[in-house]
């Protein structure tokens, strides 16, 4: 398995893990009455901003740990530079990721139009963001294996 494939698998797992843990913590706070996510949209904004920060820091740490483990396992410290095939794979995967995100965005607008509460919009955004990231990483794995 190539470095890129392993990295994408780690990205999918870490994305799921970080989002699940964060969602669980927020849900527990909501149940305890510390948050009012059904009515206070300022809190949603705050949650999103904190999530972005937490997610970035967690990913960086996970990537560093992955690189160390990979270096020990393969006995090569070099991170392969992207060549033209890698760039094409990433470009096509980003396109697929955008398709998923746009679909989620459209879905959220439809749900809003048929009368779902406004806070459902934020939940759909989080799920869509996660799905689009999974689409990006799994597309990369697909293109690396099947050809681009």
């Amino acid at each position, binding site marked *: 398995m190539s470095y890129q494939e392993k990295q994408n698998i780690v990205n999918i797992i870490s994305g799921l893990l970080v989002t699940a843990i964060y969602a669980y913590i927020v849900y527990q706070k909501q149940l305890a009455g510390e948050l009012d996510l059904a009515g206070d949209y300022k809190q949603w904004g705050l949650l999103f901003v904190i999530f972005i920060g937490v997610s970035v820091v967690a990913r960086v740490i996970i990537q560093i740990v992955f690189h160390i483990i990979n270096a020990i396992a393969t006995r090569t410290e070099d991170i392969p530079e992207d*060549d033209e*095939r*890698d760039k094409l794979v990433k470009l096509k995967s980003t396109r697929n990721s955008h398709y998923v995100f746009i679909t989620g965005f459209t879905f959220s607008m439809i749900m809003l139009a048929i009368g779902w509460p406004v806070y459902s919009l934020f939940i759909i955004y989080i799920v869509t963001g996660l799905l689009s990231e999974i689409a990006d990483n799994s597309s990369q794995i697909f293109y*690396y294996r099947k050809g681009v």
Partner: protein
Amino acid sequence: MARNKSKRNSKSKIRNNIRRLRFEADEMTQQALADKVGVSRQTIVAIEKGNYSPSLELAFRMARAFRTPLEEVFMYEEADSENTGT
């Protein structure tokens, strides 16, 4: 549908002689060729298998690495009668 068929066909039409040329170049390894042309070994594997069609620039660099004309490394199969109508 027709567009997809056309895309599939165009992908499979490009053939290459990289394996043979590497053999003739003192059994040059895929890594050695990759280093010469400035891509990863995985990209050379993908090109050799026909899973990736390189850019024109990379194709020329590969031809130069083997010191052969481009047509000797890559060849484009003639369009079949279905596409050309001949």
